[in-house]
């Protein structure tokens, strides 16, 4: 149980693949112009992570150490192909919108990193759960960044959610404001870099706040000594 809690904490916050490990930045920065794109790529990455982590964990005692990396890559590539074909079949428009970035999930360092660092050393259940949590952490950042950029750039939220979730989702679209001249910077790559930097900064500030809060609690128990020397 403790391991599960630890894995969730690591994947979602403390060791978040996007905000802390800074892995998989290429798709992260490239496709997050809208929430839908971010969510789609995030879910695809999560599926691949769970699958590859579980498989790597199953075969971890059979694979010779010297050739483990090529084997991991082949496993990941297989799962990416599966996800790619699934998306091609069921969410065709999103598949077209994400384009090259679906096959490029293979090169996402977060996936091979988890396979190497965790899945190849731990039992199947934990490895799959680690994949799930890392994937969710990655997806959360993608969605957040997508929301920021979509809001600033187009003035909408959840535009085109029906591409991913089916026709009922077209009612999810929220138009915050309409403009004739979209804020192109937010939609273009510089906006992704600025937004990502802000997210990392916010996370660091929150971490510091929490650390200070805990530190303050502990300090309160320490008995203060009276200061006898003159203050200078």
């Amino acid at each position: 149980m403790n391991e599960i809690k630890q894995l969730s904490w690591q994947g979602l916050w403390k060791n978040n693949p996007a905000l802390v490990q800074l892995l998989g930045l290429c798709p992260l920065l490239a496709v997050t112009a809208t929430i839908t794109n971010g969510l789609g790529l995030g879910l695809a990455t999560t599926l691949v992570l769970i699958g590859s982590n579980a498989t790597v964990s199953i075969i971890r005692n059979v694979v010779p150490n010297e050739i483990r990396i090529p084997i991991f890559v082949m496993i990941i590539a297989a799962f990416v192909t599966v996800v790619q074909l699934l998306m091609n079949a069921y969410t065709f428009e999103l598949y077209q919108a994400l384009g090259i970035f679906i096959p490029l999930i293979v090169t996402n360092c977060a996936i091979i990193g988890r396979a190497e660092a965790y899945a190849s050393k731990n039992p199947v259940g934990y490895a799959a759960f680690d994949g799930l949590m890392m994937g969710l952490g990655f997806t959360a950042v993608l969605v957040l960044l997508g929301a920021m950029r979509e809001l600033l750039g187009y003035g909408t939220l959840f535009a085109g959610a029906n591409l991913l979730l089916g026709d009922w989702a077209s009612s999810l679209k929220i138009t915050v404001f309409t403009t004739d001249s979209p804020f192109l910077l937010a939609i273009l790559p510089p906006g992704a870099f600025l937004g990502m930097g802000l997210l990392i900064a916010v996370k660091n500030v929150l971490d510091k706040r929490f650390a200070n809060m805990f530190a303050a609690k502990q300090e309160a128990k320490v008995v203060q000594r009276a200061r006898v020397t003159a203050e200078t």
Partner: protein
Amino acid sequence: MNYKLASSPHQHVKRNTGQVMRMVIYALIPGILLQTWFFGFGVLVQIVLAVITALITEASILELRKRDFERAIKDYSAILTAILLAISIPPFAPWWVVVIGTFFAIAMVKQLYGGLGFNVFNPAMAAYVMLLVSFPVQMTQWLPVQSLTMHQSSIVDAIYAVMTGFTADGFSLAQLQNTVDGHTMATPLDAIKTGLAQGLTYEEGLQSSIFDGSLGIGWSWVSMGYLAGGLYLIRARIINWHIPGGMLGAMVICAGVMFLVDGDRYASPLFHLFNGSLILGAFFIATDPVSASTTNRGRIIFGAAIGFWIYVIRTWGGYPDAIAFSVLIMNMAVPLIDYYTRPRTYGHQKDAKGERR
């Protein structure tokens, strides 16, 4: 006796940052007045908007950073940034353009890097590039010179136009852009660039009604205004001659060589000097003490490289003018330039390999 201890350099005129920035602002006044005369009161409206935004942004961010915002505002650097940005954008651009730009300049480019003295990039120019990339339509709506327009605009019209997009009489920006003879006019640099692309020669391009000789009507006067202010700054020793000298020199050399090679397809040095915002850029923008090079030799290289880039982008690039892009490119190179142009320390000599000890 009251002995004053001071380290070198022993400058006798004691100026603090606020005084220096104020003098730069005063030096901008002739250019701003001429720009207002030729391009309408929109210029002043933009300046007011930008300064207000800059002050609010600077104060609130310094408050967030728990710094003394009163002192930082009294150094006038935010106001100078705001004015430089405001005079760079089209006078009748919508109000939110200058507000977003100034906020970006102060909050992102200056304060996120650590405030005055720590910004790697020139705030006004980084914001200008951001605006140009984000809002290409609004950022290129330059009006023709007032004497050529069909509708004269008063200060009330300017305020209405900036705030709502229409003047008090209901003319839209597109109508304001019309000249007396019913054409929509571009800026001098744009006109020549388009003309050359259409197969006209340089001389034929100059026949357009916005030119008087090779100088754009109005534009050259504005440049003269900034030139006067810039020369005053050099005289008052606020800036050194190295950066503007390097910039204008490189521009004259590049333009001169190409003009001599083929005078039909390349504009003359005079055209390049006084049209567009080269003079403003050379004396007021590239000389930003924080983001420019700090050694004398480095300053010449820095300025000359900016002049070179401006010529290259103006002539072969996609944009008609390129002060902002060139300054930003060379801002990135400043650490390298400074590293290789460190002056010899007094009493030390270069060794055989030319490396400094």
